[in-house]
C-alpha cells in the first residue's frame, strides 16, 4: 500500500516538475528565475498545512489524551519544519535576483522565519523531556500556543514593514502558470504525506519500544 502510494507520488512529482520546468512559459519580467515559484509556493502551502495538522492534533491530545494524537503532532510538525526551511531557502534564492536582496523584513518572509524558529524550539523541547506522558502534555500545550501566535506574528510583522507582493490569486497569474502550480502543490503534498507516514511509523515503533 505504502510503497505503491510512494511510487505514484514520486512519479507524479517528477511529472509536475517537468511541466513546471519545461512546459510552462517563462515570465515577462523575471524570465526563468520565476520557476522557483513552482517549488517555493507549494512548499509554503504544505508547510502551513502540516503545521495546522500539528495544531489540531495538539488540541485533540489535550482533550482526548490518546498517544496517537501526540505522535501525529510530533510527526506533522517535523515535516512542517522541513518544508518551512525549504520555503525560506528557496524564497531567499528567489529574492536575490528579483528584489535585489537575499533577505528583507517582509511580513510573510519574517513570519515564516519566526515560525521556523518557534517549531525548532518545539522540536528541541520534545527531545529534552524523558517521560513520554509529560512530553506529550507539555508539547501539546506549547504547540497550541505557538500556532495561536502565527496570525499575531504575521500581523505584527506586516504592520511593521511591508514589501511582499499581494497574495497571488489565480486571476493575476496566467492560466498556463496556474496549472503547473496546482500540479506541484499536489505533488509536494504527496511527498509530505510520504514523510508524515514514515515519521508516524517511526514514532509508533519508538513508543512500542518504550513500552517493552
Amino acid at each position, binding site marked *: 500500500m505504502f510503497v505503491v502510494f510512494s511510487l505514484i507520488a514520486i512519479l507524479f512529482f517528477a511529472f509536475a516538475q517537468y511541466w513546471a520546468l519545461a512546459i510552462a512559459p517563462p515570465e515577462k519580467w523575471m524570465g526563468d528565475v520565476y520557476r522557483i515559484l513552482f517549488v517555493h509556493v507549494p512548499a509554503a502551502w504544505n508547510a502551513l498545512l502540516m503545521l495546522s495538522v500539528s495544531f489540531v492534533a495538539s488540541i485533540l491530545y489535550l482533550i482526548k489524551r490518546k498517544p496517537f494524537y501526540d505522535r501525529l503532532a510530533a510527526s506533522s510538525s517535523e515535516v512542517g519544519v522541513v518544508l518551512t526551511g525549504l520555503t525560506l531557502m528557496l524564497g531567499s534564492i528567489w529574492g536575490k535576483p528579483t528584489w535585489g536582496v537575499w533577505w528583507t523584513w517582509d511580513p510573510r518572509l519574517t513570519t515564516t522565519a*519566526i515560525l521556523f524558529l518557534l517549531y525548532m524550539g518545539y522540536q528541541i*523541547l520534545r527531545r*529534552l523531556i524523558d517521560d513520554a506522558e509529560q512530553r506529550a502534555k507539555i508539547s501539546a500545550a506549547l504547540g497550541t500556543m*505557538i500556532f495561536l501566535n502565527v496570525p499575531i506574528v504575521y500581523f*505584527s510583522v506586516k504592520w511593521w514593514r511591508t514589501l511582499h507582493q499581494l497574495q497571488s490569486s489565480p486571476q493575476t497569474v496566467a492560466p498556463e502558470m496556474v496549472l503547473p502550480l496546482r500540479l506541484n502543490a499536489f505533488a509536494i503534498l504527496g511527498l509530505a504525506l510520504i514523510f508524515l507516514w514514515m515519521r508516524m511509523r517511526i514514532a509508533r515503533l519508538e513508543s512500542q519500544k518504550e513500552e517493552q
Partner: protein
Amino acid sequence: MLSDLITLIQKDFRLIIRSSVHLFSVVLFGVLLLLLFSFSMGGDIDLLRKSAAGLFWITVFFSSTFFLDQSLQYEQKDGRIEGLLLLGVDPKIYYVSKTFSNFLLLILVEFFLLFPLIVLFDVPFSWSMLTVLIMGSFGISALGTAYAGVTTSLVSGNVLLPLLLYPMLIPLLLAGVQATQLCITGDLFNERFMWYSLLAIFDVVFFVAAFLCAPFLFDKSS
C-alpha cells in the same frame, strides 16, 4: 479561589522582600546592559536616540528572562509547587498568581530602568511610554511564567527559556519598540493606536491560553 489568589500573591511578595537581593541584581543587570549599549554605540546622540526604543526593549527582555527563571526556579526547588498543589491550590490559580506578581515586579524593574534610559539616551519621558511598558510587561509575564514553569524543571532549562520564549514574544517586541519609538520621535500619522491594540490582543490571547494550559504545565499528574 479568590482568597487563594490573594494568599499566593502575598506569599510571592513576602518572598521578594525577604530575598530582595535578587531583584536588586536584576535591576543592576539591566542598568549595566543599557550602559554597555550606550558605550558601544559611541557618542552619537542622534544614533542613540534612534535606537533607544529597541535597545531598551532588548534590555527588558534579558532582565525579565533572568527574573522569570529565578522566580520559577525557586518554586520548582524542593517540590514547592507540588506542595501548594497538594494543599488544594488549583494550578490555574497558581498560574494567575505567579503571572500577576511577576508582572508587578517586572514593572518595578522597568521603572528603575527608565532612569538610565532617559539619562544615557537623552530620551524625553512621556506617560504614554508607561502605558506601553505596562501592556508589554503583562504579555512578557503571561507567556514567560508559563514557559519558565516548563523550562525550570528541565536540565539546561535556563538556556531553553529564551530559546523558546523570545520567538513567541516577537509581536510584543515589535509592537513595544514601535510604540515606544513613536513616543520618542512623535506620532506624525497617528499609528500608535494600532500598536496598542496589537499589544492588548497579544496579552489577552496568551494570558487566556496559558491559563487554560496551566494544569498541563504545572501539575505533573494532570
